[in-house]
């Protein structure tokens, strides 16, 4: 069995998120390695996603957040 361009495209977002079954992943892999059009679309979508992810990966939690939580938990525990 082989996927058509349409069948591949329908699965592209799930493929990007590694949400396809092993069989589906293999079929998409096979199609992308033999179809320049779909491969280009896939690479582009992957690039856009990487850039967007990179922009939202910040910020780290403020250094004092966890200690603040610990303090309020301690207060809650002793009040109980």
């Amino acid at each position: 069995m082989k996927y058509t361009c349409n069948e591949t495209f329908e699965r592209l977002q799930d493929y990007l998120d590694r949400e396809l079954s092993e069989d589906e992943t293999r079929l998409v892999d096979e199609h992308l390695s033999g179809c320049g059009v779909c491969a280009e679309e896939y690479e582009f979508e992957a690039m856009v996603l990487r850039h967007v992810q990179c922009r939202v990966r910040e910020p780290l939690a403020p250094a004092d957040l966890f200690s603040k939580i610990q303090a309020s938990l301690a207060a809650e525990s002793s009040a109980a």
Partner: protein
Amino acid sequence: MMTEELSVQHRFERELQPIVDVAFRYAFRLTGNRDEAMDLVQDASLLAFKYFASYSPETNFRAWFLRILTNRFFRNRERASKLATESLDAAPDLYLYDRFKADGIPVDREESVASVFEKINEEAVQAALAKLPEEYRVVATLHLVSEMPYEEIAAVLEIPVGTVRSRLHRARKQLQVHLWELAQAYGITPKETQ
């Protein structure tokens, strides 16, 4: 009694510590504000601690905690202003890809995409996310900040996996439309990217 109390708190903190960063990032992207995000994570922590007995050990603490945080966020929002449930028009597939092609920007080069994203900074992406209807924004944000599998997102938001999938895919398409609008507002033209 005292040592018993301490050990519950200690167990809770041990679960919480590794996910504080992702919880804060998620809260920050939801609220768009550092102080509100701090408050939200702290509120959720207290609430989660209170109900920690209902958490089954060895299950997914991250999903359990983020569910509490998300519910807290929606509760606060409801109080502030009743949300209009906005529908999301179907954005076209491959929107950016087609816009790049139409404007003669090479789609197969990392540099051309990178040059557009140089202009679309963190605030711009935040603004683009903020334009999404809330139920789409929550799914997209959760996936972007944590790369959680769909099933875990479904557990956090208490919605079916199929709903996660369709909301995420539609949100991403709409996000591309917003990003292109922003890129244009920032004056990005093919000439500049060459």
